[in-house]
């Protein structure tokens, strides 16, 4: 838990931060889970080996990549498959993939590999156990894969322009973690230092997956080209990230884990407030900021999307960056409270996309001030939370008004305000979003409209005396337990609720997906629709054998590559 702010500049108001449009404009920062992982592995000198690489000429087989930390080892077990093109789907409903993976706790024996070879390729239809920490799969980018194999086999290097255009050779289409399909529960591992920060096992799995993919494409080129085959140049290989294709599953996650999501947002807000509260910036800090800004501009220039919403946001971001450069040239960041002044200016002049770009960037020179906050990003509280029935009805109503004051004035009967319903399909339990008034889905609706539910509870509470205990209300109205729990959790988790309507006809689920993915450290958000997004992870990161303390952090801002 983070102590109440002692900074001169307060954290931003949840009513500002928790709007969907802003959450859908978040950028990665120093506190992103990938960067936390690579910094840790470099600092602790983790060792990486590839004890197994048993792939045949058709690209089918298995490989093991082991990462050895100070106390334990973790191994990515990869299975490569020969997937017919007509089966290549990124959806949950897919049943076969180009490659499948699990992160094993330790070093697997032959028997473990044989057991997992019977299960991991089946993904959701298979079983893993306590020794496995994740289950994932990936599909190829068909055109980039073919291009890289063809080029290397012909003794040439692939075209850097084409690599940048796609960004990855394979994209993961699900990375299942904690307890899924029999895997170890996160709670049983959270006392390990290296897994204390959220999603570290999943981020490690993806880091090693990227290495496997690089090795596999080289292997396939070698098979094709024989002795004439070129070796992929490390500088080109580094430009390759791992893609990720994400559907609606992540949107329920941030609503269903209100304290965890609060902790991520609150940690970032606390970091921003700490930096804004600095009275002066040193020449060295300003130089660091300018260097990172120049590099971030290079990354933004390479960010491509075909989706109209994102194209517009990128144009706006480009204009914002231009304005930002002007501001810095004029102001030199030399006045008092320079970072606060910059943020105040940004709030006035820039779009949300630009404001959040700036908010993430000002943290860069201040690792010593903000990196320690990473230890506050996990949640140990929610599972043991008990509704406080002694709270008065009046206090509960006030709490709901605090989070959802705007929602109480909404007419929830109007079609446009409740046009959508979140549901789970019986087809492989794929999470979906449907049209409430056009599809027979309402009876399957998931509790993912906290604002509407809060308005309903607030209305029901009107009939109860202000001074009576909530326990009496709940005895009569157990249908509001869900809302009362959330309202009470928000007392310690001010950033737990989205301050927008998640079932309106206007909702863009990609805003929720981006919010979560930005904390992973994702870049190049590329929506495929209003509810599907592709991203890139670890682009320009060092490979395991290249990892040093010098390159473990700022890889996300590559120097000009052209």
């Amino acid at each position, binding site marked *: 838990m983070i102590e109440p702010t002692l900074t001169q500049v307060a954290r931003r108001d949840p009513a500002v931060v928790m709007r969907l449009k802003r959450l859908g404009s978040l950028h990665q920062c120093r506190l992103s889970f990938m960067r936390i992982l690579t910094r840790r592995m470099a600092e602790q000198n983790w060792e990486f080996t590839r004890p197994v690489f048993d792939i045949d000429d058709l690209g089918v087989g298995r490989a093991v990549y082991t990462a050895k930390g100070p106390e334990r080892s973790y191994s990515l077990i990869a299975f490569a498959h020969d997937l017919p093109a007509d089966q290549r*789907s990124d959806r949950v409903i897919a049943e076969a993939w180009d490659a499948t993976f699990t992160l094993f706790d330790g070093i697997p024996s032959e028997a473990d590999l044989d057991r997992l070879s019977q299960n991991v390729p089946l993904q959701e239809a298979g079983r893993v156990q306590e020794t496995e920490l994740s289950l994932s799969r990936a599909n190829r980018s068909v055109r980039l894969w073919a291009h890289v194999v063809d080029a290397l086999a012909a003794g040439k290097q692939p075209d850097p322009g084409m690599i940048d255009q796609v960004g990855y050779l394979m994209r993961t289409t699900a990375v299942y973690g904690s*307890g899924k399909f029999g895997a170890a529960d996160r709670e049983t591992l959270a006392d390990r230092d290296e897994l204390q920060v959220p999603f570290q096992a999943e981020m490690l799995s993806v880091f090693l997956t990227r290495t496997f993919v690089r090795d596999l494409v080289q292997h396939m080129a070698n098979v094709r080209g024989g002795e004439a085959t070129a070796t992929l140049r490390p500088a080109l290989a580094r430009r390759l990230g791992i893609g990720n*294709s994400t559907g609606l599953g992540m949107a329920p996650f941030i609503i269903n884990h209100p304290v965890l999501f609060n902790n991520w947002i609150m940690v970032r807000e606390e970091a921003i407030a700490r930096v804004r509260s600095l009275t002066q910036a040193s020449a060295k800090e300003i130089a660091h900021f300018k260097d990172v800004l120049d590099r971030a501009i290079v990354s933004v220039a390479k960010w491509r999307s075909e989706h109209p919403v994102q194209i517009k946001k990128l144009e706006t971001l480009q204009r914002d960056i231009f304005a930002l450069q002007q501001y810095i040239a004029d102001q030199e960041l030399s006045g008092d409270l320079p970072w606060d002044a910059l943020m105040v200016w940004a709030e006035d002049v820039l779009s949300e996309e630009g404001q959040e770009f700036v908010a993430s960037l000002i943290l860069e020179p201040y690792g010593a001030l903000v990196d320690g906050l990473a230890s506050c990003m996990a949640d140990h509280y929610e599972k043991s939370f008990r509704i406080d029935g002694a709270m008065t009805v009046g206090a509960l109503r006030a709490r709901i008004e605090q989070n959802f004051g705007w929602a109480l004035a909404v007419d929830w009967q109007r079609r446009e305000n409740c046009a959508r319903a979140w549901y789970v399909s*019986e*087809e492989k339990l794929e999470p979906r979003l449907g049209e409430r008034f056009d599809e027979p889905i309402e009876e399957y609706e998931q509790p993912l409209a906290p604002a509407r539910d809060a308005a309903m509870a607030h209305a029901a509470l009107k009939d109860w005396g202000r001074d009576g205990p909530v326990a009496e209300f709940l005895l009569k109205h*157990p249908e509001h337990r869900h809302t009362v729990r959330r309202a009470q959790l928000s007392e310690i988790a001010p950033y737990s609720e989205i301050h927008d309507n998640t079932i309106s006809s206007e909702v863009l689920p990609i805003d929720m997906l981006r919010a979560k993915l930005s904390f992973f450290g994702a870049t190049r958000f590329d929506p495929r629709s209003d509810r599907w997004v592709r991203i890139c992870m670890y682009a320009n990161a060092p490979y395991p054998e290249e990892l040093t303390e010098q390159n473990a952090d700022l890889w996300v801002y590559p120097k000009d590559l052209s």
Partner: protein
Amino acid sequence: MSWSLNEVESLAKRATRGVGYPWGVAEEAAMAVRWLSARDVDGAAALVQMLTQVDGKAFGYRSPEAGCEIWRASSGTLCPLLAGAALSDFASYFPEGGIETEAMWQPILMVPFAAALARNNGKPIAVLWGETTAITDGDVLSLQGPMEAVAEAVHIAPAALETATARKTNRAKTGPQDWVALMQLAHRTYAPASEESRMSGAGAGLCDND
């Protein structure tokens, strides 16, 4: 075969919702089953038996009636989830002499709520029915006696916890029959497959050769 605690929690939530309980109660049922499973008690088996008994009947009638000295349900048999929730909600008003209830389905499912009460009040609590005694300080569970599908009466009272050794596990050992029964109840929360849902609901195409 064993299940992760997250698996058992997630399935318990959906199954409880599947027989018509509100989502908030389903979440608490799930937490209760997880709490028991982590203490090597097959909470999922108790839940599926209880849900099967009450399936098809309105849940409100199994809630404790307000204002009764001895807790009872208008349907005749209390639901341990609703009684448990009330026990936990009224923690600040817990009487020194404890609480008596009339008949209750699967009283073991009330024990995790008694644990929340014990944590809140800082004193161990005993849940007693038939030949069975369950005592918890909120973390450790000492359980003696048989599981019962229905108890004629339950007594919840402050107690001393003498067994200090915690029996904890990371895995749930629910049998395949009970698991399948829970899956069937959970299945009611899933929308039937349709071509329209398949095409538009996830917002992505079916083929991804790029």
